[in-house]
């Protein structure tokens, strides 16, 4: 939707320097932008690309010294340029509806309670006693099991599977192929092999959670698995039974959590990380990509941890530097031995 620079400044709380009536038609990177596009820079090193850009309007940080280099462009000054840009782009281009209305091929149980303006795509299946809040969109081929509760304004992209009794808050976004509430990996060794330990627990997904494509979240064995408000999970993440993920924690692609681990609020977990069972990560934990956390470990928050087994980043860097020099170290030892022998 077309906006003027002045309208965008008002919407994002930015201070405008330049032409308030400038018409903005789109968003782009500095390199690909046309004159009608909005761009942003959040670091002095990107100033050069903004100077060379065709864009006529740039979002920049309050404290960035421009020295007249962007003269001729309209500037939107804000504290956090990337956040302001995200909000401006979201305002100009509201995300497209996955689906509108209830498709004639959707199979919706008579006992399901479907809220106002809910949309359900082609061939979706909604089982008995499901509850769906207002404005939620459920894409084609989604499966929503018995007694599932979904809040309002959620978006389930096509081909999401919710097992029976899963609870989703409001404004939750789930990408295609994700499976929520599947039975956890719990077995007991009997005489003739493994016997299933029934997985009777629940699964609670808070408001504003986003769940990536083909990610799997198992239900609890007896108690709940909990994903708290604002958590963001990337694609192909695995969350084992009875884990609890605290508010606003982010987990990148292909990371896996074995069962019963508790992750604090505002933690950042990289890609391909493995976390053993019954770990406790305090609030604000940071785990670098490919880190491995041994079962039962307790990690302090605020200290970036790296490697297998995970250790403080500074230690890891020092160890890694010497690891690279192991051949040299071995050679030096050999010389010492030769010198000792020749004496």
């Amino acid at each position: 939707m077309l906006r003027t620079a002045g309208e965008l400044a008002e919407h994002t709380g930015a201070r405008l320097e330049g032409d308030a009536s400038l018409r903005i038609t789109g968003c782009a990177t500095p390199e690909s932008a046309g004159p009608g596009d909005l761009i942003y820079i959040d670091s002095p090193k990107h100033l050069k690309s903004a100077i060379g850009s065709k864009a006529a309007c740039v979002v920049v940080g309050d404290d960035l010294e421009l020295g007249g280099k962007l003269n001729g462009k309209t500037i939107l000054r804000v504290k956090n340029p990337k956040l302001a840009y995200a909000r401006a782009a979201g305002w100009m281009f509201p995300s497209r509806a996955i689906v509108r209305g209830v498709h004639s091929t959707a199979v919706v149980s008579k006992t399901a309670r479907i809220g106002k303006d809910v949309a359900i795509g082609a061939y979706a299946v909604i089982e008995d006693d499901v509850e769906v809040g207002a404005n939620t969109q459920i894409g084609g081929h989604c499966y929503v099991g018995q007694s599932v509760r979904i809040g309002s304004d959620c978006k389930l992209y096509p081909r999401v599977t919710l097992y029976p009794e899963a609870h989703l808050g409001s404004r939750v976004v789930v990408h295609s192929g994700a499976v929520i509430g599947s039975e956890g990996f719990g077995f007991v060794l009997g005489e003739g092999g493994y016997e299933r330990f029934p997985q009777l627990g629940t699964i609670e997904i808070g408001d504003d959670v986003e769940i990536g494509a083909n990610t799997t979240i198992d239900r609890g064995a007896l108690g709940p698995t909990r994903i708290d408000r604002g958590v963001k999970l990337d694609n192909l993440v695995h969350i084992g039974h009875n884990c609890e993920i605290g508010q606003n924690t982010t987990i990148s692609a292909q990371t896996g959590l074995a069962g019963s681990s508790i992750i604090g609020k505002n933690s950042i977990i990289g890609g391909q990380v493995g976390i053993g069972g019954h770990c406790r990560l305090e609030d604000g934990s940071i785990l670098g990509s490919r880190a491995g956390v041994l079962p039962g470990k307790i990690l302090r928050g605020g200290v970036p941890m790296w490697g297998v087994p995970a250790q403080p980043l500074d230690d890891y860097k020092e160890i890694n530097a010497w690891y690279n020099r192991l051949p040299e170290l071995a050679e030096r030892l050999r010389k010492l031995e030769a010198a000792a022998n020749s004496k």
Partner: protein
Amino acid sequence: MEFTVKELAEVIGAQVEGDAQIRVAGCASLASATPADLVYVDSAKNLDAAARSRAACAIVGPDLHLAGKTLLRSKNPRLAFAKAIGHLMPDESIAQGIHPTAVIAPTAKLAEGAGIGPYAVIEENVEICAGTQIGAHCFVGRRTRIGAGCRIYPRVTIYAGVSVGANVIVHSGAVIGSDGFGFVPTPSGYEKFPQRGGVIVGDNVEIGANTTIDRGALDNTRIGRGVKLDNLVQIAHNNDVGENTVIAAQAGLAGSSAIGKNVVIGGQVGISDHCNIGDGAILVSQSGVAAGKVIRPGAMMFGSPVRPMDKAVEIIMQMGRLPELAKRVRRLEQAANLE
């Protein structure tokens, strides 16, 4: 369902101590149990929590003392509890009867009591045996056979020519029988090596959500009886996984490895092609096994590349001391004037 403690004791093979006429209607954790729930205690450290639990009946191990409750004494309390749950709270149905929207080929053979959910597609010459339930949106390709008593959750894809045993559980999003990753390099790019083998899944196997099992290139990919695969596991073409082996989430097997019986493979383990993992071996989480490697039966291995556990642990300890080791070398050099 509701049973007396006496009835349950017979089902799970436990001895009653206390009031055998108490009625039990469900199962729960110690913390969340109501008086009508059954709980279990398999370790002395949980006895305090058990004493505080509202449950009136507990399954306990041989040497545990717990006052004020009816006890079901069992050698393996966790196993007895699992059996009790199966009895008290039977699995909910995935699909009952044949849904009118399911697309079923006229040549498919469906045994009596098989359930097929909405929009499931069952192709030509498929055979589905008695009591098997196939959830909504599942796809079962031509000539595939699925044994009796299976639970196939919604949106499972089983390609053509796959054989699934009896009492198999497959979770949503799993794909069984997809083409293996086989290509022949040519000057103009890779050419596909046709994947014409099948997949044979034994009885009592469980396959996790979004797990993928590729069909063999020429021969079959085999998953032995009683194998348990967690979520997001990748089993490539021509692997042979032995009976009662368990593989945790996000582990991946490249092609043509032979995995023995009763092997335990941790999460995120990577096993390259043509490996041979002996019976009862344990591969600890995040281990990496190089191509063609042979692991002895019963060995416990860790690291990437994998080493015996004790050696891997020692190396990890020494890694932490590498900066100190470097300092020691430097001091020796200074002493020897070797700089």
